[in-house]
Each structure stands twice: as structure tokens, then as C-alpha cells.
């Protein structure tokens, strides 16, 4: 939380509303163990007024700022990612209605959401989850509406929800225009024509309602159809541009949770008479984790703000953000688990066994709402425009400036501006060469210019490689690797943009001094980029050898005192455990 931002204090208010950290920490692990729904946390999120933020202001809600919603989800997710996965689903389920629904449908869903009812989004089917074209649930036209048959599974909130937005086939199988979207009010369905399918047992998020719904001749009124017949897939793909972007908040929360747990452990753990945190190697792990989390944060916040100001680019932005954030955080959790050693999998020893839960829970983020490979494939399809846009340096300067001014007010979202394929490419990346140049011509922390130039060079090389990718319905693995590299480029560009935009305002904060966070983030991103591009890692710059120690100290301090742990982070409640084992001796 930054002192100057509009609505400052809202994260702290949510933390307050969520209750004592030690109580929620213990309870969330217990519920997960018993596969019980995190009802308490969800009702605290309701009481805080979170559902109103899922509803646009024109329909009576308070949804006006996606950055703020990302911050709120992160604040709750860093306690229990399961609870937010359950609660946030309502935002996902409702999103297509704001895009394509008529006023009556919007009112119905707004009323439901504002009353605290969960909404589900029924896309996946058994056997071909990611393949939306091959849906086999059918909606057959009847004189008074549609008859629905088939199974949607596994679906978050399928059983608890009052309403379901349902993608079903009304036309030809496998055709882009063969599917339609329906708003299903479960209470209005004829009993016996549908049923909830049992809760699915999952590896993580064990307590939440992952289940299914089976339709057997269920009759929907004609006005259940959202948008014109045949437009369902398009509506879904546009809505996914919003939801995929927003899901990154879950990764930010999980990453912060894990980093705080691990940092507290390294401060308390003494190996060969010295705290682990003071050894160069563990410190480098903490620093890299913080750096990657920071890169995910910059990406997520810029992408979330782009919903408002670079709306027409969201086909690129959302694919990048949804592939990148969970990937970086999964990698970070893996490294932190090694640091924690046995405490990463012992489920009642360290801080209530929180780590093993967040580790399992977070693994679902890369799977749902479009998996990493699905998002990379979506990005590959847009390579030609991205290559053209990079070559010409096309950028929406005004929209970009707004997107990277983290913490400042955003313009209202124009949902009509969402497009299936971004025509102008991606301003964040396409403005990178100009940004690199401008950074080189002003006073800049030591080493940052070299890093910016290296990032610019990698971006240049990457686009050359992207230009060689032949369009294909089934892209080669090499194209996926370039997509992964593009994500990292975006993240690096986002870091540089938000640093340049926020540097003055944040000058007094320790993470910002000497460009600490941005240099650490760029160093970590360049190292990963080099792997995907199969090029040498740029040589260490002046002062690079001091980054780890400085950043690790701040991370440990933040984890211990509750200070923000990332440049755009919020203070966190303190735990009584403070890196100690919670198990009774």
C-alpha cells in the first residue's frame, strides 16, 4: 500500500475484517485437512463488501478499479488462497454477463451477487477441459426456450452457486459459432432435470466446492440466452481476458504467503551457529524469490490496470499475465520449499503447516481458467501482430501511461472495447525500446541502464525469432518457448515502466532505494529469458553482488515486522509464531 494512492488503507481494512492471523492460519489448514469449505473467511469477505466489487457501478456495484480488486484478493489470498479461489469465482461467473448480457440479465446477476450468492461459470467438461470448441453439452431450441443436456465438470461453485453461466452447443459441433451462453437460475429449473455432481477430491484447494452439474432435459426460458445465439464462445473468450488477468492476484497472495513463511524460517533457523538468512546462498534464494514475486506483481498490476486503459490489448495482456504469474510463483514455491526442508511438507510443525497447503493450493492456478499451455498457444497465434507492432514501436501512449501509474485512479472500463485479437499488439512491450532509451538519458541507479539495454536486446532478438514462426494450428514447441520468453519480456518491461513512473513518489522506501527491487527483478528475469532463448546470461553488472544481501535483509525484516514485502505490497498482520514451530513440544 502506498501512502498516496486513492483508497489507501483499504487493504489494511480488509486485513482487519479477516480477523486474527494466527486464528485464520490455524483454521484454514484444519479446514483443508478435513475438506471443509472455508465458510468463515468467505463470509468475512462478504461482510467486507467484496461481492459489490464484482458488480459494475452501472448495475449497483462498486466495481471501478481492477487494481484495487487485485490488491484485495491478494490480501485475502496471502492468508488462504482456497477461500479466495472459492469467493472470486463469482467474479468469473458474472463477467460474461456484463459483457454480453441484456439489462435484465445484468440486473438478475447483480442482485444475486450483491446478496452474496455464489455464481459459477460452467465451461469445462469431462475429457476435454481446455477445448471449448468441443463442448458436448447441448442446448436444443424448443418452442419456449432451450432444452439442456449434458455434464459440466469439474466446476468451481457448481453446487453452492445460485446461478450458473453455461456454455452449451446450439449449432454445429467444433464450430466457433456453434456455442451459446446461458444464464441459468438453478432455482427456476424443473426438479429432476438437473442435479449437482459430487464434490471432486483435489490435490489442493481441498475444502472448496469443485463439483459438477448434470442437465437432463432441463428447460431454460428463451431469455436465458446471453447475447445472440452462436456468440457464446466469443463472449467467453472476451470474459476470459478479464478473469485470466485477475487470477494472477491468487499467485501474488500465495507467493507472498510462502515468502513470508520461508523468510521467517531462515531468520529463526540457526545452522552452524549462524542464522540461515545471513548465509549468502539462502539469502540469494530469498532475494530471487522476492525478485520474481515482484516481477509477477508488476505484471499483474499493469495487466489489471490495462483492463481500463489498454482494453483492446487484453487478448495479449491476459494470456501473458495468466501464463507468467503462476509459473513464476510455482517456481518460487519450489525453491522456498527446499529452503524450508522438512517443514515444507510436515503438516503440523511449522506455523500450523501453512506451507504445504499453499504449495498444493497454488498449483491449481496454472490449471484453471486457461492453463499455461493454453495461454501460450493463444499468445503464439498473435505473434504476427506483435512482431509488426514491435517493429513499428506502436504504443498507445496515454493508455500505457495510465496502466503503469500504479496506485493512481483508473478510467472506467469500456467492455465494448474488448476484442478477440489485439490489433495494435502490446504497448507495454512495444514501448520498451523507447523506454530503454529514455532511461539511459537520465540519472539512474548503478547497473540499471545495462540491464535495461540487455532487456531491450533480448526483446529485439526475441521478436526476430517470433517472426520466423510459421502460423500453424498446432504450434511447435519452439513457439511455446518463445511465448514463455515473451511473457518474461513483458514482465521486464512492466517492471521498468512502473519503476520509471513511480520512482520519485516511492523514493523514500527501502525497496526502491538504488533501484533495488527493479534491478533484482530484471536480473532474475534476464536469467530466465536466457534459458528460453538459449543465449548466454548477461554478465553481472556493477553492484549486482550486493543485491542479494540487501534484498534478503529487507525481505526478512518485512516478514518479521509485517512491512510490505514487495514494492507495491501492503503491510501484513503479524503472527505470534514468528518463524517458530507451532507444534507443541
Amino acid at each position: 500500500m502506498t501512502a498516496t494512492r486513492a483508497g489507501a488503507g483499504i487493504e489494511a481494512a480488509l486485513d482487519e475484517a479477516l480477523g486474527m492471523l494466527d486464528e485464520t492460519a490455524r483454521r484454514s489448514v484444519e479446514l483443508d485437512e478435513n475438506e471443509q469449505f472455508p465458510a468463515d473467511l468467505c463470509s468475512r469477505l462478504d461482510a467486507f463488501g467484496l461481492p459489490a466489487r464484482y458488480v459494475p457501478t452501472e448495475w449497483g456495484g462498486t466495481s471501478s478499479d481492477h487494481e484495487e480488486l487485485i490488491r484485495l484478493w491478494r490480501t485475502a489470498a496471502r492468508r488462504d488462497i482456497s477461500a479466495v479461489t472459492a469467493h472470486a469465482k463469482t467474479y468469473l461467473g458474472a463477467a460474461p454477463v456484463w459483457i454480453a448480457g441484456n439489462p435484465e440479465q445484468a440486473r438478475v446477476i447483480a442482485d444475486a451477487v450483491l446478496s452474496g450468492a455464489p455464481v459459477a461459470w460452467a465451461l469445462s467438461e469431462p475429457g476435454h477441459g481446455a477445448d471449448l470448441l468441443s463442448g458436448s453439452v447441448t442446448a436444443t431450441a424448443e418452442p419456449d426456450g432451450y432444452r439442456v443436456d449434458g455434464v459440466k465438470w469439474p466446476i468451481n461453485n457448481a453446487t453452492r452457486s445460485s446461478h450458473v453461466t453455461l456454455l452449451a452447443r446450439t449449432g454445429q459441433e467444433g464450430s466457433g459459432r456453434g456455442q451459446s451462453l446461458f444464464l441459468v437460475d438453478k432455482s427456476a429449473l424443473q426438479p429432476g432435470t438437473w442435479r449437482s455432481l459430487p464434490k471432486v477430491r483435489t490435490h489442493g484447494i481441498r475444502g472448496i466446492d469443485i463439483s459438477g452439474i448434470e442437465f437432463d432435459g432441463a428447460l431454460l426460458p428463451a431469455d436465458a440466452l446471453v447475447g445472440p445465439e452462436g456468440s457464446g464462445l466469443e463472449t467467453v473468450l472476451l470474459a476470459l481476458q478479464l478473469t485470466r488477468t485477475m487470477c494472477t492476484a491468487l499467485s501474488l497472495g500465495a507467493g507472498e504467503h510462502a515468502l513470508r513463511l520461508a523468510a521467517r524460517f531462515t531468520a529463526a533457523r540457526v545452522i552452524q551457529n549462524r542464522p540461515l538468512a545471513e548465509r549468502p546462498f539462502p539469502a540469494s534464494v530469498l532475494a530471487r524469490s522476492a525478485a520474481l514475486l515482484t516481477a509477477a506483481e508488476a505484471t499483474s498490476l499493469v495487466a489489471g490496470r490495462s483492463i481500463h486503459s489498454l482494453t483492446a490489448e487484453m487478448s495479449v495482456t491476459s494470456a501473458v499475465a495468466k501464463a507468467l504469474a503462476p509459473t513464476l510463483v510455482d517456481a518460487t514455491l519450489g525453491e522456498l520449499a527446499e529452503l524450508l526442508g522438512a517443514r515444507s511438507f510436515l503438516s503440523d510443525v511449522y506455523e500450523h503447516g501453512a506451507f504445504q497447503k499453499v504449495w498444493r493450493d497454488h498449483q491449481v492456478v496454472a490449471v484453471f481458467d486457461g492453463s499455461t499451455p493454453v495461454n501460450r498457444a493463444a499468445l503464439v497465434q498473435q505473434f504476427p501482430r506483435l512482431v509488426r507492432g514491435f517493429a513499428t514501436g506502436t504504443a498507445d501512449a496515454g493508455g500505457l501511461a495510465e496502466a503503469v501509474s500504479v496506485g493512481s485512479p483508473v478510467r472506467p472500463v469500456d467492455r465494448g472495447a474488448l476484442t478477440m485479437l489485439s490489433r495494435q499488439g502490446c504497448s507495454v512491450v512495444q514501448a520498451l525500446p523507447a523506454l530503454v532509451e529514455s532511461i539511459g538519458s537520465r540519472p539512474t541507479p548503478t547497473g540499471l541502464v545495462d540491464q535495461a539495454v540487455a532487456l531491450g536486446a533480448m526483446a529485439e532478438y526475441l521478436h526476430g525469432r517470433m517472426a520466423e514462426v510459421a502460423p500453424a494450428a498446432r504450434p511447435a514447441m519452439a513457439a511455446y518457448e518463445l511465448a514463455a520468453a515473451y511473457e518474461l519480456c513483458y514482465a521486464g518491461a512492466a517492471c521498468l515502466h512502473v519503476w520509471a513512473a513511480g520512482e520519485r513518489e516511492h523514493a523514500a522506501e527501502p525497496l526502491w532505494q538504488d533501484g533495488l527491487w527493479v534491478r533484482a527483478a530484471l536480473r532474475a528475469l534476464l536469467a530466465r529469458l536466457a534459458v528460453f532463448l538459449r543465449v548466454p546470461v548477461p554478465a553481472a553488472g556493477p553492484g549486482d553482488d550486493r543485491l542479494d544481501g540487501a534484498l534478503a535483509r529487507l525481505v526478512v525484516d518485512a516478514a518479521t515486522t509485517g512491512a510490505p514485502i514487495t514494492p507495491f505490497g501492503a503491510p501484513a498482520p503479524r503472527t505470534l509464531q514468528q518463524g517458530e514451530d507451532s507444534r507443541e513440544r
Partner: protein
Amino acid sequence: MSAEKLDALFGDLRDADNPVGHAAILAADERHEMLAEGERLLDAYGMNAEFVPAAYGGRLVRADRLAEVQRAVWRHDPCLGLGYGFSSLLGSVNIWSAGTHEQRTKAAEILLGGGRIAVVFHELDHGNDFAHAECAAVPSDDGWRLTGRKETVANLRRAEAMVLFARTSEVAGSRSHSQFFLTRAELPADRVLDLPRFPTSGLNGVQLGGLRFTDCPVPGTAMLGRPGQGIENALRAFQLSRAVLPASVLGSLDTALRLALECVHERRLYGGFAADLPYVRAVLARVFADLLAIDAFCGVGLRALHLAPEATLYAPAVKYLTSRILMEAFEDLRAVMGAQGYLREGSYAMFQKLLRDAAPAAFSHISLSACLVLILPQLPRLARKSWLADQAAARQLFDLDADLPPLDFDRLAVGMPSGDGLIGVLAETAERESAGSPVGRFAVRFRDEVLALRDQCAALAPSDLTIGASPEAYAVAGRYTVLLAAAAALAVWRGDDRQQEAALLGILDRLSGRLGGAPVLTPDERASAEQALFDIAVERFQDRRLLDLSARRVSG
């Protein structure tokens, strides 16, 4: 007795009625219990005899055969792998290497009678930092009196005996701890308290226990070796366990890859099967290459215990790199499995269990960074004296089917190795292979890396040879393990004409990718190697053959 016989006892894993098949294994895992039927099966097989040297009535002669049988267990259920097998092995190795004839005889009796020997080393406050373990024994009139806690010890409550590691001197350093071989019956019940079980996420069925000793009398005859020899004993035993464990754990990756192959041939996506997607094929091909690389490196590491037992850094190198590769391979598979890899039910539920089990299997016993700390102090001298000077080790080290002299526990050394016959393979291969061939280009690449690494080792500061090493020094040790693995793969392939060259190229491509920099293969060469690897994997899967180097036929 053999891995084949064990496989036959387990039967078809996919048969829902099989009491030791996937369904039963998963059900036990859900209950956080060991699979009782599986334990009975291993009893009937006489698994404990695998851990007892032939001289004491068991079947332990060769480390590689031991690992092969353990791998068959891990392929079915990692909980059985660790909870039934590995802990008794780890405990007993200390006795075979440091015990008296009487102690060895007693240990053999316990194991051959179906008993368990727990490894009571670990203290939660100290982890891998054995030298600071607190649980302490002080001399008494007729032995020792023990006070302190031991925690997260597999099978502790169910073990008839234990090898206990305790401080026996207040002096700091590596000679302040000793080991004791005790039966539970010898300890007065009022001086030993069983701590509540430590539940885990991953290896759910394995029962981790703890003990609290309060001025507990320990007979003087229980000591293993001499006072102060505890750390040395442990390091000696770890030479074996650190090579056997990763070779065993590989069985779980074999099963996971098999599940993924099945899944992508069943799931329909975008008008075809998932297996038709180039992305899916490439990921599975790469995981297959990783699996083969691990097997080759483990195979050489295990043979080195017989042929070059003084080469003490191979075991931690094998443990480090293969664990790292295994964890990453599971991550890659997870991306391909998608939601199917996240469900605790359905046809592929076994995957999420294997995923969960992989982490504790990979970094229990010793952390990966601790492995590198063991390697670092050896590097400068080896780099200076041995690399590119010493010849490659004799072919016998790399012929995985060739005979071996029996394992000699007394020769499992601790301390400085005199040479490095694996690195020698790289220079030799670079000279032999034609420079234009892909294998020749790889060999040159790896030899150049040895040269670069030699300079980096020469530049290591004294502090870089300790736990306080810089991240760059850790990276140097990590790169060294990659070169060892590359040497192992090159040499194993040279000695085994059943293995396809495409697979070798895939392995070397993955390994050289870990070193970073420009690729050796062209994109077309990589694509064709991966296509070939994928085809081999599918063929193996369809023929019900293992995916490891043995390609052994299995029942399911």
C-alpha cells in the same frame, strides 16, 4: 529374487480389484496409512533380505541390484519405498560398515526375521547440520545415559531396533557424536517417550515418529564403532544411500510419465488427441530424456560404489542433480496433465500422489544444497590435478550389465577422492568423435565447459568451500554435477548398443541446456531427436515396458 519377481507379485496396477494396485494404494494414502497388503507382499518377497549382506544371510551383494529392486517398489508406491525399504536400509548400512560381528549378526537376525531398524538421526532444530545435533549421551558406570529429542523418524514406533545418533562430547567439531545400535526392548519404558506422529503432505502413509529420552540408560556395548565416530559412520553409509535413493525414486517418475502417456492418448483436444499436439510430444520427450539421464547417472554412481569407492563426491552429485531433474520433470508433466494431474480421483489420481511424494523423497535424507556443500571442498584440487589430466575410468564402470565385485562396506571412504574418472570421459569423447557429428559437438561443448569450470574452481575463495559459499560457488558445484551426468550418459551409450542415439542427443541437449548458453543442436536436430524420443516412449508404453534404461517388460 529380483525386480521381475517383485513386479509379478504386484501384478497389474490398473486392475481395480488388485489389493496392491493403484486404487488400493490411493485409498491407503488417503487414510495416511501404509498399504498393509503391500507390506505383506514385501514380507512374502523377503524384502529385508535385500538389505542384509550375503555374508550375514541376506542378498545384498550389489548396490545396483539393490536399487533395481527398490525402484520396482517406488514404481508402485513411494510410501512403501521409503517406509518399508529405505529406512531399514539406511539404518542397517551403518551397522554393516561400523558394527562388530555381533552387532551385524543381531541386525541381520532382526531384519531377516521381518523386523525394522529405524534411523534415529534427525532433530527438527538442526536438520542436515548433524554436527550440532543436541540429543546427548553422557558416560555412566556401565554405558551411557541419553537425554534429548529425535524427530521425524520414519517407522520409529514400529521399529524393533534403531541406529541412534547422539552427541557424546561437548567439544565442537566432527568427532563429538557417536552412533548406537539399540533394540527398543533394551530401553526402559519410563525413560523413553514416543512423540505423537508427525503428519505430512506427501508420503502420507509413512509414519514419522519421534522420541524423547530422559536420562535413559544405554548399554556400552550398543556403540557402533568408536566414540566420536558417529559422523564418519554416517557419511560412509550415506555414500550408499545417496546413490541408492535417487535410483529408487526414479520408479515414481517412470509411473508418472506412463500415466501422462496414457492420458494424452485418451484425452481429445482440438479435434485430435492431446498426443497429437507438438507441445505435448516435446514435453513428454524431454521428460523421457530426463528419466534416461537420471538412470544413466545413477547407474554409474552405483557401480562406482564398487569400482571407485574412494570417489566420495559422486554420491552427493548424483543425489543433487537427479533430485533436481526429477522435481523439474514432475513440474513439466504437471503442465501436460492439467486438471487430470490435480484430481484425487479418476483414472489419473495416482499422478497427484506421485507429485506430492516426489518432493519429500527428493529432499529428505539430505537437502540438495547440502549435497553441493559436500562437493565444493573437493573441486579445486580435482580441477587442478585430475580434470583433463586423468584418463577416463575403465569401461567396466559404464557397462551397466557387467559384473561387479561385491560391495565392500569397509572401502566406502570418507575424505578426499584421488581422481575423477568421469570427467576424463569428456575429453576422451571430444577427441574420439568427429567434430561435426552432434555427439562430437556435444563432447566439445562439455570439454570446453570443463576448462571454464577449472578456472572458476581455481578462483574459489576459501569461504566458498564451506556452507558460507557464494551463490556463484554453489552454481559451480551444480555445473560440475551436470558434467558428470553428461559423461555418464556418453559413456553408458558408448558401451550399450541397444540404446538409440536420438535418446542420447535428447539427454545431452537437456543437460547442456542446464549449463546455459548457445545450444549445440540446431532446432531441426532437436525436433527430430524429440520426435524419436516420443516415439520410443510411446512404443515402450504400448509394449508395457519400463521407460528406464532396462526397458524391462512389466505387467502393468
